């Protein structure tokens, strides 16, 4: 009870405004000929599709590494896993599980290296994370051309060299999570139960991780690194661990995203993905150094709700396509607001 009160107190006006904005969009939707059931299903689908990216922000925020602008590294690991799984010819649930399993070692390796870098640059993590992410995406662009994958679904038939920019997952694991126990609400609206369950599982695992001895130490490192060190906790190790977990979640996140989306996207696709996750968790009420599961859920829902509802409702209401611009201003405004807020940690 008190934590809910606390949460409301910390909620802050930007989130309240966004909440009511979204609410009014839902209320207004039917008047502009937008079907509520479809919208709701769409929001739920995107919620499950993007939630894990947002969840991936939590460990690094908790350990004091700031927002993971370099989430693309995890996404790359996920893409490698997906490609290996396709190459191995795994299909269905096995293909999805295989992709996660094969992505894991890459995620750990990338996360470890990336964590080492971030430990060297304490205080400047976010800018550097961003450029490390950008640089690795561009590096992988080269690799996608060079690497010797040869499954016919993934390479250009003729005229091109290397992997396709988008690879269809139709015959592999498209919607394997979404369709699991899916509920058809109305003829055109389906609730992707499996996807939501998987997201809930991830949230539960993260929630309980933060309750373990190591999770407690990680939070303490983010809250006050000097305290943690004086209590015998290695801050560098905790930070690296948080980066590895975040990177791994990034890998899982892209796999969930792809199975729902039906396509695997290579090349520059991961470049901008971290920003959406950053925006979502900040909208959810997290600060640069404190984030909770509640922030993840609320943030993902509000952000994805905004993305889904503004185009359909605003555009039909105003008879323009102004929604894109509104989204651009609102979500980037939130990020700026969060960055200019005084740090909550008092010293």
């Amino acid at each position, binding site marked *: 009870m008190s934590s809910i009160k606390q949460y409301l107190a910390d909620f802050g006006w930007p989130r309240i405004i966004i909440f009511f904005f979204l609410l009014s969009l839902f209320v207004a939707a039917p008047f502009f000929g937008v079907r509520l059931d479809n919208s709701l299903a769409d929001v739920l689908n995107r919620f499950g599709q993007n939630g894990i990216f947002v969840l991936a922000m939590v460990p690094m925020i908790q350990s004091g590494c700031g927002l993971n602008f370099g989430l693309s590294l995890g996404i790359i690991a996920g893409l490698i896993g997906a490609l290996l799984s396709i190459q191995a010819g795994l299909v269905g649930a096995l293909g999805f599980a295989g992709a996660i399993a094969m992505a894991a070692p890459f995620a750990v390796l990338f996360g470890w290296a990336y964590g080492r870098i971030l430990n060297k*640059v304490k205080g400047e993590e*976010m800018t550097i994370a961003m450029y490390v992410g950008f640089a690795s995406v561009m590096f992988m662009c*080269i690799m996608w*051309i060079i690497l010797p994958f040869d499954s016919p679904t993934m390479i250009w038939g003729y005229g091109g*060299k290397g992997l396709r920019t988008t690879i269809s997952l139709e015959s592999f694991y498209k919607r394997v999570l979404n369709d699991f126990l899916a509920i058809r609400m109305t003829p055109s609206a389906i609730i992707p139960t499996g996807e939501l369950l998987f997201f809930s599982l991830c949230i539960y695992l993260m929630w309980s991780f933060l309750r373990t001895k190591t999770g407690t130490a990680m939070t303490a490192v983010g809250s006050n690194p000097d305290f943690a060190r004086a209590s015998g906790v290695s801050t560098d190790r905790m930070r690296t661990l948080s980066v590895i977990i975040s990177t791994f979640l990034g890998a899982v996140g892209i796999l969930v995203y792809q199975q729902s989306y039906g396509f695997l996207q290579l090349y520059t696709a991961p470049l901008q993905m971290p920003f959406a996750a950053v925006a979502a968790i900040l909208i959810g009420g997290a600060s640069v150094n404190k984030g909770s599961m509640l922030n993840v859920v609320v943030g993902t829902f509000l952000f994805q709700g905004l993305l889904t509802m503004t185009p359909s409702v605003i555009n039909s209401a105003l008879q323009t396509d102004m929604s*894109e611009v509104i989204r*651009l201003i609102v979500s980037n*405004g939130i990020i700026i607001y969060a960055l200019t807020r005084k740090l909550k940690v008092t010293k």
Partner: protein
Amino acid sequence: MSGKYTVKRFLSENAVIITFIVITVIAIPSSQLSANYIIQEMITRLGRNSFLVLALLLPIYAGMGLNFGMSLGAMAGQVGLILAVNWRISGIEGLLFAALVGTPIAVVVGWICGSILNRAKGREMVTSYMLAFFINGIYQFVVLYVMGMVIPIRSPAILLSRGYGIRNTLNLESVRQSLDTAWMLTIGPFSVPVVTFLVIASLCLFIVWFKRTKLGQDMRAVGYDMVVAEAAGIPVDRTRAISIVVSTVLACLGQIIFLQNMGNMATYNAHDQTSFFAVAAILVGGASVKKASLPNVFIGVVLLHLLFVISPRAGQNFFGSAMIGEYFRQFIGYGAIALSLVLYASKARREAVRVREVQYGHGGGKKAAGEAR
């Protein structure tokens, strides 16, 4: 200090620039481009890009790091150009008009940016980066909706068919290279845009002069130590904001120079990469987050663009794919920024430890104690 130590130190301090020279030297032959072509490209690109890179200097002096928010200025310049094209003001006058209209806009957004960065001390770079995103939204709103709806647009040629909003690509034929060709000097096989270089030279002179003014001195003081500067009575926040305003205005002018050379403009994307290219150039030129000089700018522009010119060809010839070169040069740009930020941040941490050791003696603890009474 032994010779070995200085060599090591030299290498670590110039790691980015050395890496670049090595890659370039390897890549030049495989690009099979003629020396004349490369030199002409370098002359053109120096004229096109230097001004933008110079815009980064002042915030670095003021200790605010790399101004990723310079694309705000670029947007202001683009608004000026759109209006110049709209009213069909051509040639040098068109550029002047764009500059005169863009500057006040740049001052306003620069001031907003400076004030916001003052609220995000210690996180200036990432905040300025996100700020560019945010102002981009407002720019898109203005260009896509306000222009044609609120601001009357005369020229139907630049308007979308729906009646408002500017087209995706803007033809700058009327001002195209009017600065460059105002006095084109031909030296041997090369043509040199003299006026453009004169403009760049006068900006350099301005910066040198500016460093000798009271404001320039204050800016450096703030850059070194905000607390001490504040205690000495220097208005820290104001000084920082001014550095951003000047940087934004210079970016506005720089973008106009850049676009007049290109001859057309992607209305909604032209500013996206402005800060990326400028920041990559100055870092490749050997500058760091805290320290930069005029030579850094020009060395950086030449080195970065040399690689940009040759890498697609080299990629084609090496791997049989031009895209590799394309990706490679982006990789190298982002990588250079990441690398120099990492090197600088870790060096700053090491430096802090070293200073402490010198001050309080470590191991030397006993020695220092022995020397004292």
